[in-house]
C-alpha cells in the first residue's frame, strides 16, 4: 500500500521490520490523525534565512547518505544549510496528512502523480513556478507534466525515477533458446514453453498487496490505452466497463502461469525464485535488482517492456514512479527553499544521488549517463522513449480507494479469477462512494 517501490527498494531483506514499524507508526497516527495534536509536531527552527528545513522519508541507510551528500554540496555552493528531519519511510507516509497540516518543514520528500496533486489541491503545498523557470530546460515534457498540479502550476521537483518491466535472466533465456516476447501471443506462448521446461513462468508474490496493482496497470494500459487508464484511475471510467473486463480476461489468461500461493508470499521471496533460476520472468520495478546480491547474478539480470496487447497502443506507456520534492504551504525561509529546489533540479544533484543508488535513473534528461550500468542505460532509454508515463496505481488514484478497495479486491482475483464479475460490481459500488466523498 504505502510503500511502493521506493521503500521496497531500500528495504532490508526482511519485510517484517517495516510491518512492525508500520504498526507502531499506525498506533502513533491514531492520535496524530487529529490535526489539533499534529500542530505540536514539526520543526521548531526559527526563520533563519540561511537554513532550510527539510522533511525526509529517506530513513534507509543508502538514500539517507546519498541525500546528505547532495545537501552538503548545496551548502558548499550556496552557503545555505539544510536541516534534515528524517522519519521512518512508512511512518512519514502514514502521517503525511497531519504533518502537512501542522508545522511542516519547508521542503519535503514526496511522489509525483495524483498523490502530489491531491495535496496541491488541498492548498497544503506552495506552487513553485519560479523554480521551474530555471530548471525547466533540464527535464523532458513527460516529467514536466508529472510535476504539475491540476491547476497547471508546478508543485514538484523530480529527482529520480525507475521503470516497471518484466525481468529475466539472460543465461536462462540463452540456455532454453527463448526470445524476448513483443506481443501478447508471444508472451503466452513463452509462458507455456517455460512451464513445459519445468520453470515457474512468472514469479509472483502479493502478500504486501501492492505488486498485483502493478500487474493490473501493465495489462490495462496495454489493453485499453493510457487515456482510459487515467480515466479509470481518476474514478471517471466505470470498473464494470467491458474494457476493464477485457483487461481481467487477459490477466486470467496468464494467471495460471504465475507462481501459485502468491498471496502468502512477499515480493522478496518471489524475487528469490528468479535469483535461483527457478522462475523465468518477474514483473516488478528495477528495485528487484536489490535482491541480486551476487555481482555475477546481477550482471545476468535484464528486462524488457511488457509486450504489446493492442497494436493501437503498442508499448507507448511506461510505468515509471518518480520521487522528488515539494514546498510546504508556508515555508519559513522561502527564498532559500526555492534555491534548494532549483539546485535539486540540476543534473549535478542527480549525479550525486545516482552515484550512491544505482538502481534508479535520473529524472532529468541532462544528467550524465556515461557512468550508468547497462540496466540503468536501458531503463533510461525506456523512460525517455515513452509517450506516456504512469506512476503506479496507488500514486495515480486516490490512496483510500487503492488501499481499502483495490488491494483486497486484486488479492481476491489472484486467488480466484472466476469471481471477476461480482468483484468488479463490488469495486464499482465502493468506488462511487469513495470518489463521491470529495
Amino acid at each position, binding site marked *: 500500500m504505502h510503500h511502493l517501490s521506493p521503500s521496497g527498494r531500500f528495504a532490508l531483506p526482511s519485510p517484517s521490520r517495516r510491518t512492525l514499524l508500520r504498526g507502531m507508526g499506525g498506533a502513533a497516527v491514531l492520535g496524530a490523525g487529529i*490535526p489539533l495534536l499534529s500542530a505540536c509536531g514539526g520543526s521548531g527552527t526559527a526563520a533563519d534565512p540561511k537554513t532550510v528545513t527539510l522533511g525526509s522519508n529517506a530513513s534507509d541507510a543508502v538514500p539517507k547518505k546519498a541525500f546528505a551528500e547532495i545537501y552538503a554540496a548545496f551548502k558548499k555552493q550556496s552557503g545555505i544549510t539544510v536541516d534534515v528531519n528524517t522519519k521512518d519511510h512508512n511512518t512519514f507516509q502514514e502521517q503525511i496528512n497531519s504533518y502537512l497540516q501542522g508545522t511542516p518543514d519547508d521542503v519535503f520528500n514526496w511522489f509525483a502523480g495524483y498523490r502530489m496533486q491531491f495535496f496541491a489541491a488541498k492548498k497544503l503545498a506552495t506552487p513553485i513556478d519560479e523554480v521551474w523557470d530555471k530548471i525547466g530546460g533540464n527535464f523532458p515534457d513527460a516529467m514536466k507534466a508529472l510535476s504539475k498540479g491540476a491547476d497547471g502550476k508546478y508543485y514538484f521537483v523530480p529527482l529520480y525515477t525507475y521503470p516497471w518491466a518484466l525481468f529475466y535472466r539472460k543465461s536462462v533465456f540463452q540456455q532454453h533458446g527463448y526470445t524476448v516476447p513483443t506481443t501478447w501471443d508471444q508472451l503466452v506462448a513463452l509462458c507455456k514453453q517455460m512451464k513445459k521446461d519445468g520453470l515457474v513462468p512468472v514469479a509472483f508474490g502479493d*502478500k504486501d498487496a501492492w505488486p498485483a496493482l502493478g500487474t493490473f496497470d501493465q495489462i490495462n494500459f496495454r489493453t485499453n490505452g493510457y487515456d482510459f487508464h487515467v480515466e479509470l484511475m481518476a474514478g471517471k471510467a466505470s470498473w464494470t466497463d467491458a474494457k476493464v473486463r477485457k483487461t481481467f480476461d487477459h490477466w486470467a489468461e496468464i494467471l495460471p502461469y504465475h507462481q501459485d*500461493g502468491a498471496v*502468502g*508470499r512477499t515480493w522478496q521471496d518471489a524475487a528469490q525464485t528468479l535469483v535461483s533460476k527457478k522462475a523465468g520472468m518477474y514483473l516488478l520495478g528495477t528495485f528487484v535488482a536489490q535482491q541480486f546480491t551476487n555481482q555475477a547474478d546481477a550482471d545476468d539480470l535484464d528486462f524488457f517492456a511488457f509486450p504489446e496487447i493492442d497494436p493501437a497502443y503498442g508499448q507507448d506507456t511506461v510505468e515509471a514512479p518518480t520521487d522528488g520534492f515539494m514546498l510546504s504551504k508556508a515555508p519559513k525561509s522561502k527564498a532559500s527553499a526555492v534555491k534548494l529546489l532549483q539546485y535539486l533540479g540540476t543534473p549535478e544533484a542527480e549525479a550525486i544521488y545516482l552515484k550512491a543508488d544505482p538502481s534508479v535513473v535520473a529524472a532529468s534528461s541532462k544528467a550524465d549517463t556515461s557512468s550508468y550500468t547497462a540496466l540503468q542505460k536501458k531503463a533510461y532509454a525506456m523512460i525517455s522513449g515513452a509517450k506516456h508515463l504512469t506512476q503506479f496505481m496507488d500514486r495515480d488514484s486516490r490512496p483510500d480507494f487503492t*488501499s481499502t478497495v483495490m488491494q483486497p*479486491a486484486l488479492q481476491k482475483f489472484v486467488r480466484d479469477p472466476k469471481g471477476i464479475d461480482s468483484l468488479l460490481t463490488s469495486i464499482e459500488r465502493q468506488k462511487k462512494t469513495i470518489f463521491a466523498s470529495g
Partner: protein
Amino acid sequence: MSSETTTKIPEAAAEPPPGTATPKKRAPQGHRRLLTRRDRLTLGLMAGVPTILHVALVWVTALASVALAFTTWDGIGFDSIKWVGLDNFRELFSNNPQFWPAVQHNVIWFVVLILIPTPFGLFLAVQLDKRIRFSRVYQTAFFLPVVVSMAVIGFVWQLVYNPDTGLINSLIGANEPGHYIDWIGDPDLNLWAILIAASWRHAGYMMILYLAGLKGVDPALREASALDGANEWQTFKNVVFPTLRPTNTVVLVVTIIEALRAFDLVFVFNKGAQGTELLSILVTNNIIGESSRIGYGSAIAVVLLVISLAVIIPYLIATFRKERRA
C-alpha cells in the same frame, strides 16, 4: 477551590454557640480540620488531573469518534467534515465485502479461544497444581508466549508458515510448484493458522489465571471429598471447579476482550488479507495512513464499540447485583 475553603472556615468558626452544643459540633469541625487547605489541593490535583486526562483521552475521543461516524472527513481541516447521516453504516452493511467476514472472524476468534486453549489452560493448571517435579519449569515454558508481544508472535509464526521457506511446508515438502499450501494467503486456511498461534499464547495465559485460582482452593475441601470416597475426577468436577467460579468469570471476560481486540497478531501475519479480516484491522486500514476515511473508519469503530458494550454491560450488571446482595 482555595477561595471556597477560605470563605467556609471563618463561617464555621463563627458558628458554634456557647455552651451545650460543643459535643454535637465537634464531629464536623474535626472533619474539616482533617483536611487542611493543602490536603484539599493535593486531593483535588490527584483526583482532578486523572479525571481531566480520562475525560479528554477516553470520553471526548470516544464521543468524537461516535459523532464522526455520521460524517465523511479526509482529516484535512475541520471545514471538510460533512454530515452524511447513516450513509457510512449503510455502505458498511451492504457494500463492504470485508465487513461481515470481519464480524464473523471476531466471533470465530472468541469461540475458538473459549473452546480450545481455555480448557487446555485449565488442564495444564490442574496438572501443575499437583506439585509435580519441575513444575516451575513447565509453568515458565507455558507462560513464556504470554510475555512475548503479539507482534513478535505474529512475526515468528509467519516464519513458520512461510509458503516457500517456512518450517511446515519444508517439512512436509509442500514448497514445490503445484504443491503449495498457502497458510498465509489461502482464506480457507489462514484464519485457522493464526488461531493456532493465538491459542498457543492464550493457553498459557489461561493456565496462569487458573493456577492462581487453584491455589486459593481450600485444601480442606479436597480432604473432605477424599474422605467421602470421591475419586480425582469427581473431586474436580463437584468440588474444585465450582469453587473456581470467580476465576471463570475473569477468564470469560479476558477471552472476550482478547477476541474483540485481536489485531496485532493478524496485522503482522498478513495485514488482514482475505480470510483474516477483523473489525480492528478494518478500522486501522480506513483511518490510518493516507487513506484517511475517518468517518467511515469511525463507523466501523462504533460497531466494534456496540459489540463490546453488548458484552460488557450484562457483565457489569451481574457484578453490581452480586455486590449489592453481598
